[in-house]
């Protein structure tokens, strides 16, 4: 009964989405306030209905209702509670339902907190959200119904794929979807602006917090996914340039460009057309990501069941939204007035440079991801584009951008002074050179590129801090004075510093863990010791264990450094009983920022086991850096000027133009 209620709520949500798609838009175009006002209750009703539907499916998982096909295929009564909940979105149908739930959530948030928006804009934005909602609700109802019943109901389910039975499943998809779907708000604002044929600084001020929030979630989601792959897949890699990873990286690059160009638009009313295009592209790339992952054209951990009709339907949705919005853009972009002018060396110029490199990098990732698909469709030839391609394209495009990052915030609007900016970066330059020189002295000339990479990371970190130091007159004024200045600094400026610092940390982590990694593959018997780097690992013995739905054999290693035991690590080979599927559970031990990583291979009959051991210096900085970037985004989001639903900003002139 509850399952049918969920199905009914979903159908009703589709009907409401249709109303939301049409009525507010008609109201806005015809200037009929009563029609336009329908958007708000419709968006709220849609959230309520989709949430009801999602709750019904969750309930079916919680009580292990095996008369529901989706539960049978992806659950088991002995599965731990957390995975019964997370398992709701650990499959195609459920994950699409989560996607729509988050979309409805964002729509409702605009309806609730968009009170300071002009009525017409709000009606249009909610209407466009309705289009997306209707398309995906229809997709779920007609091709991916999670509520389909099964008769007769089996006694047990098939269990969830063991690779997915991890706390990562509870966190990674919701975060990533919050990021993907969050981009839809910027998209809806862009389409609304194009329909209205008018855009100004106030538009950027409305769009920026939403994009920033989406960007924060996307950053966290990607970092979480990367760490999950790192510890779960047992290869010790944290990024594989897998098409599905690229599918999340492309919207991230576009959203990063968008939050930067929206600043220019807000402050200087320049780059209007480009910003609108970026808003459309960011969400288009999110949709593309959904298509790549959900359509089954790719084989990956993320592609659940592949059903050709689904792929076609998503492709149609993709074409309609991307094609439609780009056509609208082509038709209306000319009517948007061009904005302020600026010299090439200026804050605007730096942000344009940022956008150029980010979009070029995004384009190379796009080509690398889609070229194999296009080639196979056209010629039937199968190729794979892997890490070497991306190292050759993405890397060289990122380096000049990263070098330029510390300059940006130090340049003035309209016309900047490069020399004065460089003068403030002397400390950063000195620190970077010092790192390279010390590195050369320690490791010799064999690893110049890696050392330059470390120098680049240092340049970014010290450069980001230099900007704040210059602003608060650190060491140039009394300490209290500096602290007072720090307090008075706008949160958005602080956010910039923190986020740029985060990139520096990530760069350091990537370079150090890749270039200075040590790896050993050894066959060991109990009692034997493997030495790697400064560590000696002794295999003490094997421990058979069992969990709720698996049995495992753990190998117990004592880790010594300088003769004393510093850690005990227990990597394991695990077998999930229902699917009789083996998995490898790597053991990870963190020493400061460095990690020791042990995963197991095959065990021979004489008690020998193959172990693969890595020492990864500074590897944790990769994800810490991402966390710091996200923290920068949150700091910027807390800026009073940008807060979602903040009272009307005190810039009457710009606002008058918006109404």
């Amino acid at each position, binding site marked *: 009964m509850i399952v049918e209620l969920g199905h009914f709520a979903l159908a009703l949500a589709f009907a409401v989405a249709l109303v939301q798609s049409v009525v507010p838009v008609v109201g806005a175009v015809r200037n009929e306030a009563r029609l336009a006002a329908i958007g708000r209750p419709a968006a709220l009703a849609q959230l309520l209905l989709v949430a009801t539907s999602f709750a019904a499916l969750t309930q079916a998982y919680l009580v292990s209702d095996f008369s529901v096909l989706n539960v049978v295929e992806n659950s088991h009564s002995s599965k731990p509670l957390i995975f019964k909940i997370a398992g709701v979105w650990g499959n195609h149908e459920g994950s699409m339902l989560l996607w729509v739930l988050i979309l409805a959530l964002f729509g409702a948030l605009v309806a609730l907190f968009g009170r300071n928006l002009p009525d017409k804009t709000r009606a249009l934005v909610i209407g466009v959200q309705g289009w997306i909602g209707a398309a995906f609700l229809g997709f779920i109802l007609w091709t991916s119904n999670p509520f389909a019943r099964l008769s007769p109901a089996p006694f047990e389910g098939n269990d969830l794929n063991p690779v997915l039975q991890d706390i990562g499943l509870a966190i990674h998809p919701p975060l990533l979807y919050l990021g993907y779907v969050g981009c839809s708000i910027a998209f809806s604002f862009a389409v609304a602006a194009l329909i209205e044929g008018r855009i100004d600084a106030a538009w950027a001020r409305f769009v920026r917090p939403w994009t920033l929030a989406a960007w924060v979630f996307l950053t966290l989601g990607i970092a979480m996914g990367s760490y999950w792959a790192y510890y779960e897949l047992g290869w010790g890699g944290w990024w594989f340039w897998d098409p599905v990873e690229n599918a999340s990286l492309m919207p991230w690059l576009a959203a990063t460009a968008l939050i930067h160009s929206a600043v220019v638009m807000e402050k200087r009313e320049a780059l209007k057309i480009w910003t609108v295009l970026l808003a459309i592209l960011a969400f288009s790339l999110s949709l593309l990501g959904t298509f790549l992952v959900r359509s089954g054209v790719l084989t990956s951990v993320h592609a659940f069941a592949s059903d050709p009709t689904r792929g076609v339907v998503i492709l149609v949705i993709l074409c309609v939204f991307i094609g439609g919005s780009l056509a609208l853009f082509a038709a209306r972009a000319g009517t948007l007035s061009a904005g302020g002018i600026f010299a090439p060396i200026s804050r605007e110029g730096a942000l344009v440079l940022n956008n*150029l490199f980010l979009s070029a990098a995004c384009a190379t990732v796009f080509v690398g991801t889609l070229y194999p698909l296009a080639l196979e469709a056209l010629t039937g030839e199968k190729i794979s584009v892997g890490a070497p391609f991306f190292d050759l394209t993405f890397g*060289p495009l990122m380096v000049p951008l990263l070098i330029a990052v510390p300059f940006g915030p130090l340049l003035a609007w309209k016309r900047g002074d490069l020399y004065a900016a460089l003068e403030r970066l002397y400390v950063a330059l000195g620190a970077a050179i010092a790192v390279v020189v010390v590195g050369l002295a320690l490791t010799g000339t064999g690893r110049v590129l890696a050392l330059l990479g470390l120098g680049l990371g240092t340049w970014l970190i010290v450069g980001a801090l230099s900007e704040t130091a210059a602003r608060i007159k650190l060491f140039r004024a009394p300490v209290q004075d500096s602290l007072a200045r720090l307090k008075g600094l706008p949160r958005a400026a602080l956010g910039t510093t923190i986020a740029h610092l985060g990139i520096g940390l990530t760069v350091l982590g990537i370079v150090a863990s890749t270039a200075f990694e040590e790896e050993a*593959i050894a066959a060991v018997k109990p009692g034997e010791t493997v030495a790697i780097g400064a560590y000696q690992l002794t295999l003490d013995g094997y421990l058979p264990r069992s969990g709720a739905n698996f049995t495992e054999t753990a190998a117990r290693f004592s880790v010594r450094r300088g003769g004393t035991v510093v850690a005990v690590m227990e990597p394991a080979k695990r077998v999930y009983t229902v699917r009789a599927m083996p998995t490898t559970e790597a053991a990870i031990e963190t020493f400061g920022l460095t990690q020791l990583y042990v995963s197991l291979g095959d065990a021979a009959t004489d008690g020998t086991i193959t172990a693969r051991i890595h020492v990864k210096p500074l590897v944790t900085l990769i994800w810490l850096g991402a966390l710091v970037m996200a923290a920068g985004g949150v700091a910027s989001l807390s800026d009073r000027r940008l807060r979602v639903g903040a009272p009307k900003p005190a810039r009457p002139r710009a606002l008058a133009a918006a109404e």
Partner: protein
Amino acid sequence: MTRKGRRLTLIGLAGVVLCAAVGLTLYALSDGISFFATPSEIAANPPPPERRLRLGGLVETGSVEKEPGGLVRFAVTDGKARVPVAFTGLLPDLFREGQGVVAEGRVGADGVFAADDVLAKHDETYMPKEVVDALKASGEWRPEAGAAPVATQ
């Protein structure tokens, strides 16, 4: 600088970045990609040793030999031809004799495929799509072998 000059600078800069991106992409596409090949294709048309390939097929039953130091030797077959493979490292959990596999690497001068990566199935009901297609092409496709690609992860 005049307004026109500024605009030209901007366009010029965009052009430079765009050209760099296109150039890098074309260069990388000629060098950084790997073609998929079946054992029959390699036998019929031996590839040059510098070309990166993804070799797909079934792990030949009885061919897996493990040597000390983590070196593994096995053969990949599609029923018509076989290619010996050498790989150092940990094999994936679902690597099995008689099951589908994709090995990435180069064919050495001795005819042995030196793999630097071996991929197997993600779960027990899934086989890499390239392998399924290759087996279908060579007539060795047996869906009942538990390899039906209906329920990938």
